[in-house]
Structure formats: C-alpha cells, structure tokens
C-alpha cells in the first residue's frame, strides 16, 4: 500500500457513521460527508491532493498539504466566533415577581402559590437590590424577564423594576429590554398601556386548540382558560403589534400526538413562530405523569416539522424554533444565544434567576430544586451577598466547569458536539451529579435524534426544504431568499 503521509497532514475532527457515509465535523462545526471508502483512504493517507474529496476536506481544514498556520488561524477565529456568546457574561436576568398564580397548570414546574398568599411577592426593596446586581453584569445587552407565578398579580413591582432599571440605565447606557411572561388572564387596559409605553415584549402560553390548552392550563378553580387567553392575545397583538407578542407551548402526553393541530392554532392566532418544547419533569409535572418516551416525542416532532415545512411552502410564515436554533448551529458560522443548549451551559453566565425573596439561582430548574429543599444551585442572596460572591462563587464555577461538552463523557468525541449543549441542573436532579449519564439521559437522546434528523435533511439538500430552513435562520420570506438583495 502506498501511503501519502509525507504529503498531507490530518487536523483534529470528530466523526460518526451516517447511513452509508461518514460524517466529519471540524472544530468550528463545519461538516463534510464522505463515503466509508474515502474515509479509509483519508486515514491511510491515500488521497490524491488534486482530487475533490481532498479539496473538500481541505476547504474545512481537516487536511492540509501545504501550510498549517492558515488553517489553524481560521479554525481559531471561527471557534471564537461560535463561542462568542461567552464574551459578555450574563445578559438574561429572570425575576420571579411572585409565586402567586391565578392558574394551576398540571405541568407547572414553578409550584405556584394561592392568590391570597401575598408573602410570596417580591418586595420593592428586594427588587431594587436585584436590579442593582443586574447592572453589575458587564454585558452591553441586558434583558430583564418577568416571570412567576403570574407577574401581573404583582404588577406594582414590575413597574418599580422597569422604572428603576431605566433610571440606572441613564448612566449605564446598555441595550435594555423587558419581557413579561404572563398567562394574560389579568390583562387590562391600564396594564396594556404600560406595556406599550415601555415597549415590553409579551411572552404568553398556548398549548393548542381549546381541548388541548384546557387539558393542562386551568384556573385554580379548575376551569378552562382558553377563551380568555384567546381574547387577550388578540387585544395584546392589536395594541402592541404582532411582533411583540409571542407564545410558548409545552409538549405533554395530551398534545404530543396532536402537534399538527397545535401548529394550526398558532397559525390561526397569527403567531409567526412556534417552539415545540419538551416537558421538564419537575414539580407537579412529575407527579401528574405528563411525560412520554423519547421515541414518541421525536417521531411526532419529525412529523410536525414536516407539516410546518409544507405550510411554509404554501406561503404561511411560521418557523419552528427548536429546529432553527440547531440549524443555525450547523449551517452558520455564528453563535446562537439560546441558553438551554450551549457549552458551557448558560447557567449563571448567560442567564440568572432572582427568586421572589432575593435568592439567586443558576436557572429556573435550580429554583425548583431549592423549593424541594435542595440548595445545590443557590448562588447566594441579594440581601446577604455581594456581586463577587454570587457571580464568582463556588456554585457558578462548578456548574460551568461541569457543563462543557468538550470534556464530558461521550460528548467529547461526538460529531454533534458543536451543535449541542449540556444541562447540569437536570443531570443533577436525575442522577445526582452534574455530568450526568448520556446513555440514559433523555436530554441527550432527544437532542441527538433531532440534530441527526436535521442533518439528514441537510444531506438530502432538497431545494424547497433548504429555502424554508434559510427563511427561518435569516428571518426572511422564501421569495426574499430567492431574489437579489439589490432588487
């Protein structure tokens, strides 16, 4: 056998079998598919440096037959770009305005309290200390998200935070944004005026048509919420603009087989994106047995993704956000800002949660654990601790150190590494350790299968499907994508 090892050099890459091909991914997330035969020739140094297989690999810096400086320089630059979400530290600051809620959703992980329990409201004093901490973050962009419970039940504190943050921002001059996550039941004219005046984004919840929505999203008295939510979504859209109102859904045992009808409902309600989210089995959701196995989810997710693609080809503009995030990771050189799927995890460094009493957590799931008596991910309290103690303490360091897929078992060698992320809090709650156990992790399995499915669609390279994908990634219509930007 003649070997070319003196002719070319192989640079680091990860690979996996992909159908009849081998998928090769470089350190910056660029991929090549080659046949098993060519893969063997590659590793045995038998490729001809003039053939296309070799040139395609060299294009992605997987081999080089000339100089090493440039490929390493390009890879380093691209790796930095992919990890640029780390540059600015914490941008997303979640405020638990109150634990009180006027709903009692069956899957609620936030374990809400009765409407009368005023002691679970965030006070102005606590809110002030939290906002002071928010502005210690070096991030030039600050997003304050109001969550609960139901934040509209303690709207005075919301108003206080907006006012105080805006006042501080006159000095800090950051790009400051507000989002309120609300079930919209308590929406009224006065609140709407306020949301409009302060350009506050609205994120609500919609699980599908009436029967599916009301299966889980019920009032404390046990009645459905669909009609009122519908009415108020419309009112909010008309007042604030369609772009300013979005909705989230949770996939449960009830709607997992009927995701297409959930999609239809989103189209009917004029939403232009949907995020088919899996359920997190914390709090009530675990007790109510709302879960499903991985196979059921991925099978139905794929079917529904197909359905959404077809809708887009028929002229409906509706993106699926889970796919969009992963496609951005696979197909673009840029970083994504989705804190739940990154490495290291967004826990504390990208996103932080301020509890109603000033406790600071690395994530909302961390707050749930605390509610159940485990303070493993409590970073500190705004009344007791300084910024350095909270954001440079043991909790945040351990969480980040143990959520780098680059050095986690199985992840470290996975070809999908650059497209994936880690969830140390979930690993801990299920297994008792931050690193987790890939073979039994549903987080791993679902991400793996969805990434694989999207990779398969990329490989098929159907022109229509790729147009839909790129319209999601670049937020443009298919028509725009096909036309020159110069008209």
């Amino acid at each position: 056998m003649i070997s070319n090892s003196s002719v070319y050099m192989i640079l680091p890459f990860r690979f996996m079998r992909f159908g009849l091909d081998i998928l090769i991914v470089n350190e910056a997330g660029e991929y090549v598919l080659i046949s098993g035969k060519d893969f063997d020739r590659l590793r045995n140094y038998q490729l001809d440096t003039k053939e296309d297989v070799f040139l395609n690999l060299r294009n992605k810096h997987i081999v080089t037959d000339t100089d090493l400086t440039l490929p390493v320089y390009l890879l380093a630059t691209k790796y930095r770009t992919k990890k640029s979400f780390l540059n600015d530290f914490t941008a997303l600051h979640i405020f638990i305005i109150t634990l009180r809620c006027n709903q009692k959703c069956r899957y609620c992980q936030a374990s809400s309290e009765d409407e009368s329990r005023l002691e679970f409201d965030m006070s102005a004093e606590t809110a002030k200390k939290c906002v002071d901490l928010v502005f210690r973050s070096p991030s030039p962009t600050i997003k304050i998200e109001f969550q609960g419970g139901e934040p509209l039940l303690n709207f005075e504190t919301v108003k206080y935070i907006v006012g105080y943050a805006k006042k501080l921002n006159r000095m800090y001059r950051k790009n400051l944004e507000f989002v309120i996550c609300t079930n919209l039941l308590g929406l009224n004219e006065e609140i709407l005026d306020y949301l409009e005046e302060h350009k506050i984004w609205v994120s609500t919840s919609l699980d599908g048509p009436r029967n599916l929505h009301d299966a889980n999203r019920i009032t404390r008295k046990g009645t459905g919420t669909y009609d009122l939510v519908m009415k108020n979504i419309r009112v909010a859209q008309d007042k604030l603009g369609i772009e300013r109102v979005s909705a989230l859904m949770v996939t449960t045992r009830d709607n997992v087989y009927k995701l297409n009808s959930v999609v239809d409902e989103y189209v009917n309600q004029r939403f232009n994106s949907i995020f088919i989210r899996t359920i997190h089995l914390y709090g009530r959701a675990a007790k109510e047995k709302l879960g499903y196995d991985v196979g059921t989810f991925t099978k139905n997710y794929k079917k529904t993704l197909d359905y959404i693609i077809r809708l887009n080809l028929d002229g409906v503009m509706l993106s699926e956000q889970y796919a969009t995030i992963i496609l951005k990771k696979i197909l673009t050189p840029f970083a994504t800002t989705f804190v739940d799927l990154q490495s290291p995890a967004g826990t504390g460094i990208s996103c932080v949660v301020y509890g109603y009493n000033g406790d600071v957590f690395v994530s909302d799931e961390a707050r749930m654990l605390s509610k159940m008596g485990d303070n493993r991910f409590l970073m500190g309290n705004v009344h007791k601790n300084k910024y350095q103690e909270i954001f440079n303490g043991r909790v945040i360091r351990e969480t980040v150190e143990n959520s780098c897929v680059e050095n986690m078992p199985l992840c470290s060698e996975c070809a999908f590494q650059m497209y994936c992320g880690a969830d140390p809090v979930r690993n801990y709650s299920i297994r008792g350790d931050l690193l987790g156990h890939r073979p039994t992790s549903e987080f791993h399995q679902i991400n793996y299968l969805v990434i694989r499915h999207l990779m398969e669609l990329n490989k098929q390279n159907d022109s229509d499907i790729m147009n839909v994908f790129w319209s999601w990634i670049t937020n443009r219509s298919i028509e725009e994508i096909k036309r020159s930007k110069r008209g």
Partner: protein
Amino acid sequence: MRELKGIPLNSRARIIGKISKNSAQTKETKSCILVTESIEKRIKGFRAVLCSASIEKTTALRLKMPIVHGVENIEALSEGDIVCVDMMTGEIIVVYEKNSVHNSILASTDCNCRCVMCPQDLAKDSPENLENNLEIIRLIDKSTKALGITGGEPLILGDGLIRLLKECKKRLPETQVQILTNGILLKENDYVRSIARLRMRNLVFCVPLYADTDTEHDFIMQRKDAFEDTIQGLYNLAAKKQLVETRTVVMSLNYRRLPQIAEFIYRNLPFAIHVAFMGMEVEGQARKNIRKLWVSPAEYAPYLKEAVIYLSRRNMDVSIYNEQLCLMPKEIWSFARKSISEWKNTYLEICKQCKVKGECGGFFAQPVEEHKRFIKPL
C-alpha cells in the same frame, strides 16, 4: 479608457483638466480645458483648448495657450469629463466621464502578482503618476456616486495610496471609493491601521478570491502564499471594521468549485458586504492564455447558479458581473449586473432581436469566437 487624437500646438507638457464647453470666464476656468468648434480671440484662462476644426498656426500662436486642433469625434467629450492631454503627441485620454457610473483612477500600472488571466498590460510606474492622479481627484465632480482605485496593484504605492485616499476623503466625501486590490499587502496590520485611521465611511476593498484552497489560488495569482496573505489581509480589514467585497473571476481553473468557493466565503468571510462572480475579460494575459483558461458558459452556468443560490439563501449580497442573460439560468438573472464600462460595452448583431437586451450586461469590446457561439436572442 476612451482616447481621442488631434494636432498639438504651443506646448510639450502633459495637461490634465476638466472639460468645459463654455468659453466665458468663471472661477472654474483655470482648472478647465475648453472644447470648442473653432478658436476665438477672447478665449483666455483655460489650461488648454481642444478644437475640432483645423486652425492656422499663426492664429494659434497669437492665443499663447496649449491647443489641440483637428480633434476627431470631439462630441464624445462631455461637460465635466476629465482628460489628460499629451501635448507631445496630441493624444487625449478621457480619465473620468461625468455621465458614467464606472469611473476609476489607475493608481498603479505595476503589480506584485502575475495572474494568469490579468487583462491589464503591466508596466513600471512613472514618477508623475501619483501627482496626476491627485490632480484628477481634485477635479472630479462631487456628485460622483462611485470611484474605483485600480491598477496594477494600488497598494504597492504604500503611502502614496494613503495620499490618494486622503484626497478622496477631502474632495469626494459622499463618493463610494472602491479599491481593487489583491489584498496581499494588507497582511501588514500597520498598513491597515493607517488606512483605517482615515475613517472613510464609504471605502470598500474589492479583493479577488479565485479558489477555496491555497495551491489553486496561488497558481492563478502566480504567487506563493498569495492565499494566506490575502486571507490574513481580509481578517485585518475586518478587525478594523473596513468594508470588504470578494471577487471571483470564473475560468477553467476554478469553475467546478464555485459552490465550494461560495461556502468558503460564507464560513470564513461572512463579513463580506458583497460577493461578485465575474466573467473573464479576455484581454492581456487572458487573451494569451485563453486556450488554457476558456470554459464555455453553458458548462459553468450550473456551478454559478449553485454558488449564487447558496449565498443568497445565507443573506449575502451576491452579484454576477460581465455575463450575458442568455447564458444564465433564469433563477439567477436578478443577480446579474450591468457591470461593463460604457466605453468597452458592446452587443452582438444577433442581440438586436433580443427582448431582454435592455437588462443585459452585454460584452467587453471583443468577445472571443468560442463565446459568441452560445449567444442567442431571447
């Protein structure tokens, strides 16, 4: 560039001036060259006079002013054009056309590469070149939308280029200035820094990228490490927030990898504000090497289409230059630009029957026979 010729009198110098057709005195007169049908006594204050009629030497002597008479085709000169007149030979070169969108300054006639398809005839730079170009920039109309700085390789001027750019910034603050450069000298970060320090908002570096891999690119540029140096230069520019455009001339040596070149640009140079794919201008070296470089448009069209669609999907601004619509799939027509300078631009006889001639970029003056065969009216 457009050239005219006449008979020179009264001077042996090289004179640069702005065309005026008004013989009356204004405050601009001293920078102008008058174009007239016949010489009159009252003409004074102009840098020179160009005249279509033949005149008596005695009349000319009385005027004591550089004169070129008997100029053929003088109506081709428009008010506001800038010409360079060689009073030794009577040659009048139009260096700027007011009514054109394709004006450029020939900053250097020399180059640090010898590209296999270079359409330019290269020569050592003459020492007065820079001063002449500075004078041209001073005379250019402020309303000019775009001005190219070409070569040769403009960057080999070093500080001379900085002087040209400073003059552009001062005289033409609204004009988009495009430097056509191979980018090799931009690997010197100090040089990039001194250009960035000028803070020109409308400056774009148009840099060639002929392949997605170094050996292939270096061969076309006929220079070792050209690829590495150019990429480093582009990254230096990006780090200083300078605007970058890539240009890829399509030829036999690279057409099959146009999609991979597009991919390389998107993954490694996503900051490029514009990506251009260009039909080859068959002049100079390209004409000499045409047998090795030629590829029929019908053959490369599918690759071009794939590359253009790839970039368009990714929200990159992509254009096709120097191509004829009848040779391209309809899906990529909207990306084709009318990119050939007016004075070079032609159409074939057969094009007269074509319904989309108005939108088509046409040809450089001399399309080769192999090319003509594929042209058909639509």
